[in-house]
């Protein structure tokens, strides 16, 4: 087991270096320049553009730019082109903003998908099952941003309350309880919107897993023993049906960065996804590269974690 983990970490580190270098080259291959050296600014002379280009190392060969990036990242002095602020603290602050949205959406997905899916499997073919199947397909098919716009229009039109951003403006002098509840309210709509597709997809998985387990011999045996139906479903079947989902925890990690770009953009949520999106638009190479590296680390760590988790929960699997 420990051997497996150490060897895997080693392999993943090498992969990480390759990924970051390839990504670096691709980003520089893409057309476009950082907006600071946009030649369409009528106030900029070629001399000034040349100075800025030199300061950003834009005219050095790509591998040198990569080396500069690694060096600055290592010393913690990597700065955004856009506002000259250190990249790592910037990313950390955005991460803290993204975290509650991500956590709440995840909690909503996992708490709602299971009861919906299990109940669907239990009354297979009934009205409830067929309507949830229909609803989940509908929710999977409708794009999240579209649903979000509808939700915003509805909430604003009917209730006249703010739904955008992390809190209502001008609330700084209100009481603490009001401020806290205001923050909770602002979390509700974006996290529900981000969770909807997840609930739909996951409940489908849960349903089919449950169906598969419910048709196993040992479930029939349990029923034949004369156990109560609830005991059969929730004790004997559910535990085994859960196994594949444990591994999904690991795969959640990279979602932290890319999972909610669209929702952060629509709800003006100052999170990581929006940071990355805006960095790409303004060709802010240091920010794009660092986010990309973090995403790669999270993905690799996530797959490793799910491998390990699998071995932990399923005694049949051994890691070598």
């Amino acid at each position: 087991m420990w051997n497996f983990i150490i060897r895997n970490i080693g392999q993943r580190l090498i992969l990480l270096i390759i990924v970051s270098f390839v990504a670096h080259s691709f980003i520089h291959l893409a057309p476009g320049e950082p907006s600071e050296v946009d030649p369409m600014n009528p106030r900029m002379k070629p001399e000034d553009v040349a100075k800025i280009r030199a300061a950003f190392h834009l005219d050095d060969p790509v591998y040198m730019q990569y080396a500069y990036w690694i060096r600055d990242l290592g010393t913690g002095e990597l700065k955004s082109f856009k506002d000259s602020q250190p990249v790592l603290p910037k990313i950390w602050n955005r991460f803290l903003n993204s975290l509650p949205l991500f956590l709440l959406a995840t909690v909503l997905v996992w708490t709602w998908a299971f009861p919906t899916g299990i109940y669907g499997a239990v009354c297979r073919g009934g009205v409830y099952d067929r309507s949830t199947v229909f609803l989940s397909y509908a929710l999977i098919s409708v794009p999240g941003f579209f649903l979000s716009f509808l939700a915003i229009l509805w909430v604003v039109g009917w209730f006249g309350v703010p739904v955008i951003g992390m809190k209502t403006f001008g609330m700084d002098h209100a009481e603490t309880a009001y401020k806290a509840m205001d923050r909770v309210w602002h979390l509700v709509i974006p996290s529900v919107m981000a969770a909807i597709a997840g609930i739909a997809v996951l409940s489908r998985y849960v349903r089919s897993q449950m169906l598969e387990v419910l048709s196993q011999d040992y479930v029939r045996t349990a029923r034949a023993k004369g156990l109560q139906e609830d005991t059969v479903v929730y004790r004997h079947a559910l535990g085994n049906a859960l196994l594949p989902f444990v591994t999904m925890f690991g795969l959640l990690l990279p979602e932290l960065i890319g999972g909610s770009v669209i929702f952060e953009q629509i709800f003006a949520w100052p999170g990581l996804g929006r940071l990355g999106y805006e960095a790409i638009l303004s060709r802010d190479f240091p920010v794009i590269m660092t986010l990309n590296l973090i995403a790669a680390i999270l993905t690799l760590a996530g797959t490793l974690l799910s491998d390990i988790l699998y071995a932990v929960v399923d005694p049949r699997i051994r890691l070598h």
Partner: protein
Amino acid sequence: MIIKRLLLFIPLVLVCLLLQSYFWVPTYENQASGNPSRLVTYIEASSGDAKFLNPILSADSSSANIVSQVFEGLLDLDENLSLRGRLATDWQISEQAYLLVNPYHRFPDGTEVTGTTLFHRIQKAWLTGTDESLKKNVQSLELLSATQRKETVSLLLSNTEGQPQLKDIPVTVKVPVRVAFTLSQVDQDLFERLKPILGEQYFEHFPFDELIQFPKDISQETEQALREKFPTILPIGEHNPTIVFHLRKNVNFHDGHELDAGDVKFTYEAIMDPKNLSPRTPDFEPIKKVEIVDPYTLKIVYKRLYSPAITAWTMGILPEHLLNDAALDREKQKRNLSQEAQEVFGMRDSQLTRRPIGSGRFQFVAWKGDQYIHLKRFDDYWEGPTQYQDYYMRIIPELFTQEVEFRTGSIDFYAALPHQVDRYKNDSTYQWFSSLGFAYNYIGYNNRKPLFAEADIRKALGMAINIEEIIQYLVYGEGESITGPYPKNTEWYDTSIQPLPYDPQGAQAIFQKHGWKMNEDGWLEKNGKIFEFNLITNNGNPIRKNLLTIAQNAWKKIGIKVNTQIFEWAVFLGDFVNTGDFDAVVLGWSMGIDPDLYQIWHSSQAGPQQLNFVGYQSQRADELIVRIRQEYNRAQQRQLTHELHRLIHEDQPYTFLYAPLSTRVLDKKIVLVNKGADGKEDYQKIYPIKSGDVTFHFHKWRKLKSTPVFTH
């Protein structure tokens, strides 16, 4: 079964917990109840975040917006777009001029040119008044002896890979004997007036080689480029316009430090410091020196005639005591940076670009990246405090989101799109504005291509497009037709010029006159070739995309085959516009307030990477453009710009489409408060000034509890 119950219970409790928070949130109707400070808080929306809150570094509109509240310039533009004193109470513009002795030349009567002969002849003309304006304008004359100076010349050369690169060459300049003039007014024709005395060719042959010495080890190309610069390094006749500013006394920065002439000089030096990479250097580069006469008086001497330079002083003034070398040294010591970071540490890295301290109406409180910037009013402001106590600029990239926030009372003001304004027009809860700004949209023809070489043909192309219809249907009436390169709300625009008529038949007649005949397929044809070209624009701009299709369709009707294509901005610029490798483009300009059109229309600016990418060439236009930027008299300037406007209109290098109106909406409870002499208050409806700016009277705005009714 406990698991079953938990599975049902947990999601339901979670949802109930979340939804009850709704009852704690303020609604649109009750935004101030229980939260009275909302009435003295102003919140506006911006699509993008600021970058640098420093007037010399900021280049984007969000930063500029905040900077204009926190910092203040010597001047600004008043309601009629004339300059008005802010930190400066008044200013005078005069001129110093210098004329070098040209030893290669002889006077018209054959006498040798020496310092004394030159001086005496000019002095005689001045005193006897042979030239009326010379007598009136010249205040004193002086003969200066020869000197020597050393300077560094920056040349832009291409390196071995063809990339532009800066090269600094040290030169020694032997300045010969010269005559100095002090003029009460700037006179760009001073040396023209002296030609009867000096002779017509006085400015033509000059011994630059003997007077300018440079290192011998430079390459041939470098020497060539340097030689081209000789006339600017040592001009034979030199104009030095001079501005004297008198500063307002007892103006304080937000930290209580008094603002004086030293801060102005420091701001200038900071802009010119190459380490700061200021995007504003072009505006201040014409300055020769900034002299502090006393703590409240400054003298600015310019290297050459460049009248737009004065508008540059609307830029905010930095606090020297917080940003000079000593202050930056203290900051980098405190922040524990690495050796290398310390070496390159400059104003860009200073925390003061994130937490600015200026002397404007509002002082900085906080900046949360991509969320908001918070300012509060500066109570010691010299003109008195504003009505509002807090100012927020919220960053909301989505226009839809802006509208949603506006309708829930979370923002007071935003720039709505035309189709949104259409909705607000029918809603009595809000007030809306639409007014002319400085922008316009156009179709630019590559004047270098034989297809578009004739002004007549370009005119015919313009006549085929129905601009009124575009304004009505594409921008919901939020646009005005234009006829030339100046913003319609400035005095530089000649309103007497008539726009091109919409006349497809007339256009066809012009094509026929030039030998283009309709062929069997319905295309215009000449010498076996049909009239066909590519019309391109950038992606991400729905209005331009629609313009592309409208133009294509309009031209198809008169037999012109147009292929349209949309490119990503970087590709569009890099592969087509900058290289001049295109037929026609749909684009827009956002102009400034000054009448200088050098970069967009002068024929010298038609190279790769330059802004006259359509390759417009007209000798008369070049002359006018140069005269306009050298003219300091506003009335004269207006006359010249009107001539230039007419000329460009006749040449039609662009089809000038329309100037979009900027459209904004505002909470109707916000009014303009006028205080009478007796202290009585009077509410007035907010209105846009000539520049289209609604916020000009912002310091007098107030949000009332309920919507007011105006009596006048």
